[in-house]
């Protein structure tokens, strides 16, 4: 079977729901399937990446720590939406892991190149 291009489009903020964490768990699993896996953080999903998180006050796992594990699972195509960062007063210096910033045109190209998109 030919390798598929699978994009995880992550748009939910962490903690209020378990969507962010559960979607990241799916990304980790995808990493072991020898597919072409990419992750795009956009909208409130960029909050998953912000440095300084600590789930302990809410009795939850720290979502940024889970995201930081992605490269160890061979998920290295990590992208973030430029406009979503800007709208929230954030830049890459605020993030807990290295990700590539994509403008709108680059995001359109990335999405159009996929066989499947999984959202959270």
């Amino acid at each position: 079977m030919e390798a598929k291009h699978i994009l995880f489009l992550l748009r939910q903020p962490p903690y209020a729901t378990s969507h962010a964490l559960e979607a990241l768990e799916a990304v980790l699993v995808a990493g072991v399937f020898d597919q072409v896996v990419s992750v795009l953080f956009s909208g409130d999903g960029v909050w998953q990446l912000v440095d300084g998180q600590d789930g302990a006050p809410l009795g939850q796992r720290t979502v940024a720590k889970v995201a930081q594990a992605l490269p160890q699972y061979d998920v290295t195509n990590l992208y973030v939406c430029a406009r979503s960062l800007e709208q929230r007063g954030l830049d890459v210096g605020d993030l807990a892991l290295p990700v590539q910033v994509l403008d709108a045109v680059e995001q359109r190209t990335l999405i159009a190149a996929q066989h499947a998109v999984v959202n959270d």
Partner: protein
Amino acid sequence: MAVLHLVNRAAALDACLAAARDEDAVLLLEDGVYAAVAALAPARPLHALEPDVRARGLSARLADHVTVVDDAAFVRLVEQHQPVVSWR
């Protein structure tokens, strides 16, 4: 191949359109169909899912450039596009 975007909340349409190309199709469904109302719809071709439009009493309130489609046409849109992207 062109992309099919599914939007199930009106507030998610802006983010969807920022990521959609002109040739991509956008299908509004569930609470997304409120974005098809004449007063709210952006100026680009849109599809809206018929059972959701009808239940909400919106049939006569939609913008002219919105195409209402039934479930069978939803399936055809999926056949003709790849990937299918959901926005909420």
